[in-house]
C-alpha cells in the first residue's frame, strides 16, 4: 500500500517535472527567438545589410511566390462570389452585397491569412531547411570562423525580404481575388463590373486597407522569425532538418491563425477597421 502510494507520488512528480521541462523548453525557445530578433534589428539599424543577398531573397520570396499566391486568391475569390451570389439569390431573388462581402472578407481576412499560409509553406519551410542544413553541416560554424556573423549574413536579408514581400503579395492577392469574384459575378448574374466595384469600394476606407496590411506585416514577422529560429537550432543530420522544418511550418501556422483573432480585435478596438 505504502509502496503503491510512493509509486503514485513519484509518478505525479514525474508528470509535473515533465510539464515543467516542457514549459522550460518553450520559454527557452521564446527567449532564443527574441534574442535572434534583437540581433537582427541590431544589424539592420547599424546598416549592415547585404543589398545583393536581400534582393535575391526578395526575388525568391516575392516574385517566385506570386503564381501560387495569385492562383490561391483568384480561386478563393471565385468561390466566395459563387457562394454569396447563390445564397443571396436564393433569399432575395437577386445577388446583392456580393461586391461588399467580397471586398471586406478579402481585404480584412482572407487576403492576409491565405497569403501568409501559402508563404509559410513555401518560404518559411525553405528558410528553415536551408539554414538547418547549413547548421548540421557546420556551414554556420564556418561562417563564424570566416569573420561573418550568421544572423547578419543569413537572417537579415530574409527578414527584410519577408517583411516587404508578404504585405506586397497580400495587396496583389486582394486585387486578384476581387478580379476572380468579379468574373464569376458578372458572368453568372445580371451584375455589371462597375456595379460590383462600386459595391466593394463604397464602404471600404483607408482604414479597412490598413487593417489587413498591418496584420500581414505582423504575419511576416511570425513567419521569418520562426523559420530562422528553427533553422539555427536544427540538430541531428537530415532527420533533424526535417523535424525542424515541420515544426517551423506548424508553429508558424498556429501562431498566425491564433494571433489573427487577437490582432483583429485589437485593431478593431483601435478603430482601424
Amino acid at each position, binding site marked *: 500500500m505504502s509502496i503503491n502510494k510512493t509509486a503514485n507520488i513519484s509518478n505525479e512528480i514525474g508528470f509535473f517535472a515533465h510539464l515543467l521541462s516542457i514549459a522550460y523548453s518553450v520559454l527557452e525557445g521564446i527567449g532564443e527567438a527574441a534574442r535572434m530578433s534583437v540581433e537582427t534589428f541590431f544589424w539592420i539599424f547599424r546598416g549592415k545589410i547585404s543589398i545583393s543577398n536581400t534582393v535575391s531573397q526578395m526575388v525568391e520570396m516575392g516574385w517566385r511566390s506570386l503564381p501560387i499566391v495569385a492562383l490561391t486568391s483568384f480561386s478563393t475569390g471565385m468561390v466566395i462570389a459563387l457562394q454569396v451570389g447563390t445564397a443571396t439569390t436564393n433569399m432575395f431573388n437577386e445577388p446583392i452585397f456580393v461586391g461588399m462581402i467580397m471586398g471586406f472578407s478579402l481585404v480584412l481576412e482572407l487576403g492576409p491569412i491565405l497569403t501568409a499560409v501559402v508563404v509559410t509553406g513555401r518560404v518559411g519551410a525553405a528558410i528553415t531547411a*536551408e539554414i538547418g542544413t*547549413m547548421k548540421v*553541416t*557546420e*556551414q554556420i*560554424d*564556418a*561562417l*563564424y*570562423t*570566416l*569573420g*561573418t556573423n550568421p544572423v547578419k549574413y543569413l537572417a537579415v536579408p530574409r527578414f527584410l525580404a519577408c517583411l516587404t514581400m508578404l504585405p506586397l503579395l497580400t495587396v496583389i492577392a486582394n486585387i486578384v481575388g476581387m478580379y476572380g469574384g468579379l468574373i464569376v459575378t458578372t458572368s453568372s448574374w445580371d451584375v455589371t463590373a462597375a456595379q460590383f466595384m462600386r459595391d466593394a469600394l463604397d464602404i471600404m476606407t483607408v482604414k479597412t486597407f490598413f487593417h489587413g496590411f498591418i496584420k500581414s506585416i505582423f504575419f511576416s514577422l511570425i513567419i521569418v522569425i520562426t523559420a530562422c529560429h528553427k533553422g539555427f537550432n536544427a540538430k541531428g543530420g537530415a532527420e533533424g532538418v526535417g523535424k525542424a522544418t515541420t515544426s517551423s511550418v506548424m508553429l508558424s501556422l498556429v501562431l498566425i491563425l491564433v494571433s489573427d483573432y487577437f490582432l483583429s480585435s485589437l485593431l478593431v478596438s483601435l478603430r482601424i477597421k
Partner: protein
Amino acid sequence: MIKIRNLSKSFGNKRVLSGLNFEARDGETLVILGSSGTGKSVLLKSIVGLMKPTNGSIMINGADITKCSSMELHEIQKKMGYVFQEAALFDSLTVEENVAFGLTALSDLSKKETTKRVEECLSMVGLKGIEKLKPSDLSGGMKKRVAIARTIAYRPQYIFYDEPTTGLDPIMSDVISDLIIYLRDNLKVTSLAVSHDMKSAHKIADRIIMLYKGDIVFEGTPKEVDETDNAIVRQFVSGSSQGPIEAERTFQL
C-alpha cells in the same frame, strides 16, 4: 602563443576533456594525436570559440577567449583559420566564392587582387580550373583541399587543421604536408593539426601531443615519439589492435 590551462568540456554527464594543459608557441606546428572520439575536434572547436568549454582558460595572444566580450572575440577570430573535418564548404556558392569568402569579409583587397589570391591558393592545394564548380560537383578530397584554400586565403596567423590529409591520396597528402610547412616557414603561421596520418604528422610536427581518455598522455618532438616507451603512444603510432588502447569490438582473431 596559445596557452591552454585546465581545459575541460562535458556534454551533459559525458566528460570529453578533463583538464588539459598545453601550449603552442608562435610559429610552430603542434600535432594532436588521439583515437577516434577522444575529443580532438571538440578541443579545436573550443580554441576557436565555436564551443564553450565547461572549465578552464584559453589564452590567445595573452587574451582569455573564454572570458572576453564578443567584440574582442571577433577581433581574435579574424586572426584564426579553421579547416573543418568535413570541409563545411558553403554549398550555395561556387568554389571561387567559397575561397574568396574570408577575403571579402576580413580583408580589403580589391576584386582583382581577390581573384588572383583565390587562383593562387587553389593552385597551392593542387586545384586548377574548378573555380566555377559548386561543392556538390567535387570529390571528398577536392572539397577538403578547397576548404584548406579557403582558410589560407586570408592569411590567418593561427590555423587549426582538423585532419587535413584524411581522404587524400598519398601524394596529395604529402603536398598538403609541404604546404603546412611552407606556411610555417614563410608566413610564420602557428598551427594546430589533428591527424591520424602518422607519416604526415611526423613530417609537419614540431611537437606532438597525444590525447587519451580526455587527458594528454604524451608530449614531445617527433623524434621523442619514435623513442618513447609509452605503451599508449607506441600502440597508436604502430597502429596495432593489441595494446593498452582497447579497440572495442565483438570478435577476436
